[in-house]
């Protein structure tokens, strides 16, 4: 049991980060804090992908002269990391759009508190 818990510590940490992010999105009233929660949520997923690419005693996946396919075990898996480069870009764009929307909301209602906004809609 302890082995199971400790052996998967990277995943437990990922779940924790995802939970924190989701908490921010769902519970926080301030829209900026919601956006931060969203960012944390995405970071959790990036962590997960980095975790699955990691191996003990392996080096960064840079091909050096004379290395051979049979030595692949000595390198980390580069693919999830490259995927995450793209995902980070997507995440940045998302946050950018979110902040733009928040500016638009603030200009119209002069508040970013969800409850107050809903009241003003009535």
């Amino acid at each position, binding site marked *: 049991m302890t082995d199971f818990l400790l052996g998967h510590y990277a995943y437990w940490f990922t779940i924790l980060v995802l939970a924190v992010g989701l908490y921010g999105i769902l519970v926080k009233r301030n829209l900026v804090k919601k956006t931060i929660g969203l960012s944390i949520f995405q970071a959790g997923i990036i962590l997960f992908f980095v975790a699955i690419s990691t191996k003990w005693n392996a080096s960064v996946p840079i091909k050096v002269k004379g290395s051979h396919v049979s030595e692949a075990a000595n390198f980390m898996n580069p693919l*999830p990391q490259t995927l995450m480069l793209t995902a980070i870009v997507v995440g940045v764009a*998302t946050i950018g759009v979110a902040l733009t*929307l928040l500016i638009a909301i603030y200009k119209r209602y002069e508040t970013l508190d969800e409850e107050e906004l809903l009241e003003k809609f009535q």
Partner: protein
Amino acid sequence: MIVSDLPVLIPLTFLVSALVVTLFGFWKERWGYPLAVLGTLLAVCLSLYGFFQVMDGSMMRYEVGGWAPPVGIEFVYDTLSAFIVLVINSVALIALIHSRVVGKTEFPGKRGGYYAVAMLLMFGFNGMVITGDLFNLYVFLEISSLSSYALIAIGDKKAPFAAFRYLLIGTVGGSLYLLGIGFLYVVTGTLNIIDMSAMLPQVIDNSAVIGGLILMVLGIGIKAALFPLHGWLPDSYTHASSTSSALIAPIGTKVAAYVVLRIMLYLFGDQLVDIGLPVTSIVGALAALGILYGSIMAMAQSELKKMLAYSSVSQIGYVIMGISLSNPFGFIGAVLHILNHALMKGTLFLVAGNLREREGHTNILKFDESYRKKYPWTMAAFTTAALSMVGIPPMAGFFSKWYLALGTIQNSNWLLLAVILISSLLNAVYFFRVLEKVYMRSSASESTSDTERQEVVPSMLWTTTIAAAALIIVGLFNASIVAVIQHMIPAGL
């Protein structure tokens, strides 16, 4: 050679248009519209040409950058993706042509940006449909989602807030899908759909595969507005500008439903999808609940656009239900309904746009007989689409329901059959409620200005009527469409 490059050319057309529109649109705002229409027209021509290349059931595989799959990204242009691409691009063309006047009145000064984002949206959708790589699909999904947040934010005063909510829910959905890919990648070591589907039978017992499937369906389910993940949809469609909702509503959720179809029936296949959990039954039940919930909520709305939005929740349920039946009839019904509903919802939102442009509102309670006199063609288009939504033959809507009904009968699933029939009645209730007002309620004011024809400008009128006429044509000649759809049915179904 151009034919083999088609899979990549179609999305690329939109990407190039987006750049061109950005360049010229910011320089001279009025150039945005013609350039966007031109780009879409080009894409429609390409997809029409491509459709005829692969309509016999053949398939084109394009290796992006010359990297062979499964290492490189691959675009798969088969009959199904060619069909969906043709449908969404044609509907987008109609919506974009229609947007000329609405753009001038609803967001003056922002048209350059608007059309650039619209092109990006279509780039995302086309990419989602054509790509054969799961991660690449995520990227296209986010491109289209980010564009749709921006498009929805261009609307009335509440629009940015609706868009922000959609952004929160949508990004969580996209992230869950990404997490699901991660699970599958850990087990199979590939991201290519065809490659992965060949490997899945050996690893299907692994709980990570089942977890991955659930996460992916959940994530895409949010984008498809599958009940109960539909919360973002009604507000977004209601508060967005008429032209944004006419562009996004008919195709946005459909593309997501198409991804669900790819995952459930192509990637996993009907044999494997149910091994860990009865996924098809659960999804089917949710779809059925969504059909009823959407219809009932639609009845309670007094705002036309909101009614149409809830109706979308209900209609996407038909598509998902057809997929979940996992038999040939259900498949035909689902794919046919993607086409039919795109046309129907397109027509209805165009009508809403016409009314907003002329009357400044779309409050059903204010509708009366003068609308029919003022806008005879617009109202005729509305009537056609409404009859089609109810499922009156020979309108298109009848036939998708007919195949879905056959699918439920083939599975002996009488509950779902009852849901299809009852929801048709509910559709009738909320559409005839509007029609009754338009055709029967005598207008409050007796002034002559209320009885003279004040139909919208030709660019809006023609697009609306063409979309409506297409409903009848598709209905009457759907046998040839179904014949093509039969080529798409995945092996073993």
